[in-house]
């Protein structure tokens, strides 16, 4: 079983608050990803990182930001939460290379903005 952890699991918070979703992995994976998951929709990539100090935006436009100061840690921050940010956020990681390296997912953070 993959060792990738997300906290909090659930968060209900008011509009305008600053939020940080935590993601940590103990596998030493270079690549990490954040996805947004809504019911009946595909997972949308919002940010990814190929290593320390490397971050890129994904296909889905997002008002969030990420940082990658340590290999194992990839937090996502919303400076001012809005109801449109309500969703499930999934963090994933994968090994370096272009072989059969799947992504390993955390159990997600379900975020509700009131």
């Amino acid at each position, binding site marked *: 079983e*993959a060792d*990738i952890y*997300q906290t909090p699991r659930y968060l209900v918070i008011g509009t305008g608050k600053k939020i940080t979703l935590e993601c940590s992995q103990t596998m030493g994976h270079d*690549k990490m*990803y954040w*996805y947004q998951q809504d019911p*009946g*929709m*595909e*997972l949308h*990539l919002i940010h*990814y990182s*190929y290593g320390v100090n490397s971050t890129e935006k*994904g296909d889905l436009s997002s008002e969030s930001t990420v940082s990658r100061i340590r290999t194992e840690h990839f937090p996502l921050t919303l400076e001012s939460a809005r109801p449109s940010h309500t969703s499930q956020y*999934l963090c*994933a990681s*994968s090994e370096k290379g*272009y072989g*059969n390296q*799947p*992504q*390993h*997912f*955390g*159990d*997600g953070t379900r975020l509700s903005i009131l």
Partner: protein
Amino acid sequence: QQQVKQSPQSLIVQKGGIPIINCAYENTAFDYFPWYQQFPGKGPALLIAIRPDVSEKKEGRFTISFNKSAKQFSLHIMDSQPGDSATYFCAARTTGNQFYFGTGTSLTVIP
């Protein structure tokens, strides 16, 4: 634009049946095709994966069939069990190591 199209959206089968979930893609740069299984409250977990130079791969009761010329691949679950009830996602990876996911299929296996 959706890169990977998945069907059906939901599927109900009797125990012992063989549910089949289909996915199609257009981008010939995809080089790796994993399937994920997701239970409520959990993240997706890798189930089985295939590369486009192989037409079929089996792992236990799960089989991927891959048709490169048609740009289609499918998941078959043999002798399905109630414990297989979950949401299944197909995915495709580009040579640039970006993953694109289908919209998911909710499978219910009735005892």
